């Protein structure tokens, strides 16, 4: 249409730029009803839902998603409270044969529920807000790691946590590292390899920065071994715990930091890699589904799981063939996190470790660990969480291995909690096989 034919619009100028369908002012105001068109009620999502399996009161993803959305009118806000029982494992997404945007529907409905129905003065809200914003609390722990670890290890801390905040008292708080990954990285002087043709930007997330810097360090050494220049951009939480708690405003704020930083790295020729399967899941899938931020699609399209990236871009299999890990590691009981499964990555670890001579990984089956991030930390979900995890615990105990292995921080907490095993990250094993461990700060 030419300008001459532009409709006369006496009220508001600039109609040509107005696009209400794509520009969502808030993610929790999205109209996802058309997504219900894809559902033909087969219930495959319900049969794959780990929460529905152990909790008869949970109506399951089909109700939470397409049914609830279809029953909604533009101005209806009465989301059922059961959406807070969804653990956000995203298994329904992979299970659906018809591409119903289930997790997007759940995330949006949950945000709406928290926004409209949860009292901002309730214990539940503040507990969830705290859990979701682990990124905000962790720096305190990291500043005085020994004190924090001592405090959280005291039995009455757990008791008070349960009584005051509703955090499961039986859980052990994760210990803080004495030095964060970012501190180590600065002290080290940043990247040791400079290579304009092979650059990656590392999204380390919160946990490998504050709690398990050994995983992040392993990633650095493995990638430098393959000649990559590593960038560590400024970053905030990936948003996963916030989605799961319906705190989309918090998640959006974090995304508004992450997306421009990561997009700038892409402009510098880097691809984005993550060592945590939930971080990569969030950047790849949830970001473009929930937010409309400039470059978000580009960030999504250029984000990889750190191990997947090497399998595609390097001859990782060749490098591991016949390699050894030495004394440090024995065989592993391996659990593929749901969020790795959703990215189609559930087979790669067992396959890769099969190539290494002196170590094997035994898959403990395709059940969910049950913790699902902050979910299993809530006192009211603790029992459900442990019931879901039962199958995994049992399989771990039957596997001929005494150490656990996974790529998800909270799965590893659950694995350790249920079995008492030490739990490691696959990147640490790759580091031992490719670079050798105990390489100091190099």
């Amino acid at each position, binding site marked *: 249409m030419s300008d001459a034919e532009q409709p006369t619009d006496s009220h508001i100028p600039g109609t040509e730029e107005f696009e*209400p369908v794509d520009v969502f002012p808030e993610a929790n105001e999205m109209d996802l009803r058309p997504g219900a068109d894809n559902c033909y009620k087969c219930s495959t999502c319900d049969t794959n839902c780990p929460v529905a399996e152990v909790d008869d009161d949970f109506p399951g993803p089909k109700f939470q998603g397409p049914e609830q959305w279809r029953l909604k*009118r533009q101005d209806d806000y*009465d989301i059922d409270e059961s959406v807070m029982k969804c653990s956000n494992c995203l298994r329904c997404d992979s299970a659906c044969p018809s591409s119903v945007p289930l997790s997007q529907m759940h995330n949006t409905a949950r945000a709406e529920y928290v926004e409209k129905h949860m009292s901002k003065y309730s214990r539940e809200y503040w507990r969830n807000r705290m859990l979701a914003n682990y990124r905000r609390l962790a720096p305190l722990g990291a500043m005085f790691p020994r004190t924090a670890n001592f405090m959280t290890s005291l039995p009455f801390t757990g008791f008070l946590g349960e009584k005051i905040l509703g955090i499961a008292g039986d859980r052990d708080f994760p210990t803080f590292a004495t030095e964060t990954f970012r501190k180590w990285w600065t002290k080290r002087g940043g990247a040791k390899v400079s290579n304009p043709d092979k650059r990656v930007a590392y999204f380390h997330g919160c946990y490998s920065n504050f709690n398990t810097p050994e995983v992040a360090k392993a990633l650095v050494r493995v990638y430098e071994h393959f000649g990559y220049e590593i960038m560590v951009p400024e970053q905030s939480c990936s948003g996963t715990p916030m989605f799961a708690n319906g705190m989309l405003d918090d998640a959006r704020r974090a995304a508004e930091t992450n997306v421009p930083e990561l997009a700038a790295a892409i402009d510098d020729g880097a691809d984005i890699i993550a060592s945590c399967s939930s971080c990569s899941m969030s950047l790849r899938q949830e970001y473009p589904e929930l937010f409309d931020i400039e470059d978000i699609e580009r960030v999504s399209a250029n984000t990889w799981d750190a191990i997947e990236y090497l399998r595609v871009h390097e001859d990782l299999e060749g490098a591991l063939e016949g390699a050894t890990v030495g004394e440090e590691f024995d065989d592993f009981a391996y659990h593929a996190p749901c969020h790795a499964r959703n990215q189609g990555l559930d087979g790669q670890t067992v396959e890769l470790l099969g190539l290494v001579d002196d170590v094997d990984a035994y898959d403990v089956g395709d059940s969910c660990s049950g913790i699902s991030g902050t979910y299993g930390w809530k006192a009211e979900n603790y029992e459900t969480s442990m019931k879901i995890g039962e199958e995994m615990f049992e399989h771990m105990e039957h596997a001929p291995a005494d150490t656990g292995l996974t790529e998800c921080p909270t799965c590893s907490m659950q694995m350790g909690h249920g079995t008492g095993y030490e739990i490691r990250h696959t990147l640490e094993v790759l580091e031992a096989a490719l670079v050798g461990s105990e390489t100091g700060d190099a």
Partner: protein
Amino acid sequence: MTRDTEVLVLGGGSTGCGIARDLAMRGVDVTLVERGNLTGGTTGRMHGLLHSGGRYAVSDQASATECIEENKILRDIAGHCVEMTGGLFVQRPEDSDEYFQEKLEGCRECGIPAEVLSARESREVEPYLATDIKRSIKVPDGAIDPFRLCVANAIDAQNHGARIETHAKVIDLLRDGDDIYGVKVKHDSGPGKRTHNTAGSTEEITAEYVVNATGAWAGQIGAMADLDVEVRPSKGVMTIMNVRQVDTVVNRCRPKGDADIIVPHETTAILGTTDEEVEDPDDYPEEQWEVDHMIDTLKELVPILEEARTIRSFWGVRPLYEPPGTGTTDPTDITRDFFLLDHDDRDGVDGMASIVGGKFTTYRAMAEDITDHVCEKLGVDARCVTAEEPLPGSEDMSILNEGMDNFGLRSPVARRSKQRLGSRAQDVLDTNECNPVICQCEGVTRAEIRDAIDQSGSDLNAVRIRTRASMGNCQGGFCCHNMANELSHEYDEETVRAALDELFQERWKGERHALWGEQLSQAMLNYALHATTMNRDNDPANGSKAVDFGAFDGGRVKARTDGGE
């Protein structure tokens, strides 16, 4: 000579039920007979639009004025059947400015509140409108559930002493010389509430006066007494979308044409319609191109309709009428006004009047006029109160707002149930018994199904129109059998099976016209579920050999010990 009833109303659509209610409320003894279910003719086959009158504001201002008056009345007396969505008359760049102006002025002349919205404002109201629309006129159109409204009228008539007989087909008019004094009906079962496989009977019902409110079928009734009623049935197709693409009624702002309206209706949106004269209101072609044409035209207004899922299509037959000799050739030009044909004045045959033409939104006003006429004939002097007295379910709509509990139901299910039941919600949903959701698509619980069964016997289509169960996206694939199961407490196996088959077939009838994309997947899954899982295509119990149901045991009694609680 004593008659069985004072007035006999033929036809259980909106007109017939409206007349029955009005007569009963004026203290007249009335019987209504309907050959199928209530709404089974044209009423149950409309797009559910509560006209503001905007549609007729240029072409027929008398109708337009009447529409806005009745629109306001129905919001009061039938609040639980109405959703005030508002409506837009949307102008596309190729539509005439002159007509837009005429429409706007017409609305104002008829007392219809009308406001011009810019393209941007229109799209803020309805984000899925096409990006190149020019502007729109906002009017108080609404959505109305014709099933609920019609049933509520019938219930209220019964509450005032009327006898309502469904599945009672008129097979003859009783005429003695120049006097019509009743009809002969054939009951499918009974008389009384329908029970499948129960022998029906024929019955002569005599009356002081007969009102032929059979709409498109009025000609057939008239012919039984050698009376000519020149009704010109005209078919129109409507297509039901799986979800609401719009929450406002969207009309195309142009003089006339097919496929120019989208009505948000409950969980769905209904696209309408076409206008083509047919010979026989019971037998006319239903063609796929009519559906395609409608989606193709309406996607100019709302482009996502092209990709969106349709769950079924249906055709309705308008009871158009024009006085002999008018000679209009195009059915879209025939007036939508209604006509009361007094056969005494017209044909010299006493005791009967026929009502033809008219439209759903003004059903109450039509009923009032006709009731006035009948009362005059009978010498009854009573005032019409149907514009003031709320229908059952709409008595006190304020209780539906804050404060009413959810009866232990999940919130969207509770909200939908309360919207359907109106002020009856407490009576129906407040139960100590386990109350599971039977129809997941529409959120209908067992308590609501049982309430409908109490009203209508073993007829599951009657349950369907009262509750919306089986009207969602699976079109009954996942719930027909569960609905039938609710009959099994009262009815035997054979009855339940017949009721189930009848409902499932009725669902399939409309779904046939939506077999592509997701609805095709749905139909395949429904087929697999019913033919394979339930073995309904080869069920031994369906054959001639009796199955010894007593030989089945009660199933495994061992409690679950595998973790489930």
